[in-house]
């Protein structure tokens, strides 16, 4: 039986909290190298996150949304995508983006206030958009376009969003359109229990978020979002289903990955105001990283040496990315006039010239003070 057909209340798991395979669970068919790479990517996401938070504290970066605790959901799901599949991120998917080929330096650049960090040429990734849930419609639209354009050669379109996003009208309209037009979409809800300070129970009275799929006529499944193998497995099945015409069911799937954000909502947030340290500790016991590490150690895939090598590679890679990001030049001031329309209108030309005159007259320092 496909995991997607389970009762949504029945959360899919592969590894328990100590990294042991759960009774009756099937371990997804991944090579040792692939497993180690998943582990490395999760470690990298965690390390990147810690460094990014400290850059922000030092004033070297603007507001930043941390992901620690959510590595299994991000890496497990992104790893399950095929090369040509498309990803529609929220603002927190730095780990998933990395797995899909986004330079860490680009990610940093974006959060350093440089929109060029969001220009991901050549990758099947939509730019980060901040308004909650709105990207769900873009994912549905692109997936639906693939029905219309791509014949049988369809890709899957995976869209991330949070538990809070499920309350927005765009969530509803997006999933409804996906059902009606049988779009090859995978809706991946990172239920990290909190939408800033609002707990999951306050967001909706429904028992699970997965069951909301029923309103759109397709399947919903709840997965342990801190179990990378379970996430991989469920996402993989959803991706395959999206691409295979199944006369008995619809292509879209709603995945609810149950997880926890260990840190603050963003660097501007202080979670101690609204949640207990106790709760955080409870969830830290489910930390996906030691969990996968234990599994890999237990199965002999990884040893101390392997772990050290990962640590080293991760630290080097992040350090390098930070150096690179900080060495980027500030964008040209007039850059802002260049992406309004394909061609600058007369009024934009005038305004651009006006800005140039101001810069000449007063110098950049004066204008930026």
């Amino acid at each position, binding site marked *: 039986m496909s995991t997607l057909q389970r009762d949504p209340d029945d959360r899919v798991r592969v590894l328990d909290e100590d990294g042991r395979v759960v009774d009756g669970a099937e371990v997804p068919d991944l090579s040792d190298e692939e497993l180690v790479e998943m582990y490395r990517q999760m470690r990298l996401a965690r390390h990147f996150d810690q460094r990014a938070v400290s850059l922000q504290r030092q004033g070297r970066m603007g507001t930043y949304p941390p992901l620690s605790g959510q590595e299994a959901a991000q890496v497990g799901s992104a790893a399950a995508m095929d090369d040509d599949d498309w990803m529609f991120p929220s603002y927190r998917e730095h780990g998933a983006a990395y797995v899909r080929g986004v330079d860490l330096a680009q990610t940093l650049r974006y959060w350093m206030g440089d929109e060029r960090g*969001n*220009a991901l040429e050549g990758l099947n990734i939509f*730019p980060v958009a901040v308004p909650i849930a709105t990207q769900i419609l873009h994912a549905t639209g692109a997936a639906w*376009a693939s029905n219309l354009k791509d014949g049988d050669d369809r890709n899957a379109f995976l869209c991330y969003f949070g538990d809070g996003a499920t309350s927005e009208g765009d969530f509803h309209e997006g999933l409804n359109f996906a059902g009606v037009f049988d779009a090859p979409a995978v809706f991946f809800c990172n239920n990290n229990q909190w939408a800033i300070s609002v707990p999951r129970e306050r967001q909706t009275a429904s028992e699970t978020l997965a069951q909301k799929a029923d309103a759109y006529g397709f399947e919903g499944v709840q997965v342990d979002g801190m179990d990378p193998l379970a996430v991989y497995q469920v996402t993989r099945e959803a991706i395959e289903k999206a691409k295979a015409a199944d006369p008995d069911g619809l292509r879209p799937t709603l995945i609810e990955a149950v997880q926890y954000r260990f840190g603050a909502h963003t660097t501007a947030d202080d979670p101690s105001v609204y949640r207990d340290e106790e709760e955080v500790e409870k969830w830290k016991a489910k930390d996906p990283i030691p969990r996968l590490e234990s599994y890999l150690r237990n199965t002999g895939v990884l040893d101390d040496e392997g772990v050290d090598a990962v640590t080293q590679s991760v630290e080097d890679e992040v350090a390098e990315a930070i150096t690179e990001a900080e060495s980027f030049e500030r964008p040209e001031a007039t850059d802002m006039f260049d992406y309004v329309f*394909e061609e600058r209108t007369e*009024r934009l030309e005038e305004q651009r010239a006006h800005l140039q005159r101001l810069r000449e007259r007063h110098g950049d320092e004066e204008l930026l003070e």
Partner: protein
Amino acid sequence: MSSTQNLTLVQAVRDGLKSEMQRDDDVLVMGEDVGKNGGVFRATEGLYDEFGEDRVIDTPLAESGIVGTAIGMAAYGLKPVPEIQFSGFMYPAFDQIISHAARMRTRSRGRFTCPLVVRAPYGGGIRAPEHHSESKEAFYAHEAGLKVVIPSTPYDTKGLLAASIRDPDPVIFLEPKLIYRAFREEVPDDDYTVELGEAAVRREGSDISLFTWGAMTRPSIQAAESVAEDGIDVEVIDLRTLKPMDTDAILESFEKTGRAVVVHEAPKTGGLAGEITATIQEEALLYQEAPVNRVTGFDVPYPLYALEDYYMPEDTRIEDAIRETYEF
């Protein structure tokens, strides 16, 4: 010589959609009741039969859904022309229009663009229920990243629609439903474009410049003809594109006349007559001989039809304003 057809404005919409769909397989039409039903104003009549349900798509009743999925489609290489049934129902899609359609190019530094055209019938005067008569072009003109087009003749409608569809950026295309069937004009069968951003002189004149668009063009010309009998020579300019606006045409006319009237249906406060006035006096104050006279809807919610004729600027009110400006 290419053949023409004698079409109403709404028929020209349909003809414009049709020839662009024939020209480019990526163009598609989507919205509420646009398919089998051919649109509540028949603007998409026959397209469903000709192009099939994959290119003329009846959607669920959800405007944010329509525009939001169209944005995803556009980014994926299609050229969707979503219809919103009445411009008063664009607000549920406002976030997608403002936060995404208008920002996608900037956000992705040009990798993803939004070559979509949001079509909607707008304006009053047809005895319709509430929220069926608004004209809020100023909302869209204020948002960087959007173009705003309002045709006033069948010929322009087809050509401007084609230009909008071929434009690589998002266009809000508002159709003056009051004159959907008010008159006919010869419209070429072949496809053609009327360039965005160019005003049209509907009547040449030397005493006063009158700037307007959409359904207000006709009563404006009427008023101009009427005052002509008293020797007041009004130049009537139909702006056609509200953003980018043809400032050159506005200034050229104003520098000749030194007097201006701006006519629009939208409420006065924050309407585009203010923008036009500000532009004129910024660039041509020294030519100015009288205050620019704004003839607009009142600052009230558009009334139900028992009172709508009092709300709408019509020839009498325009005439009064012309005389006032002339005599200043």
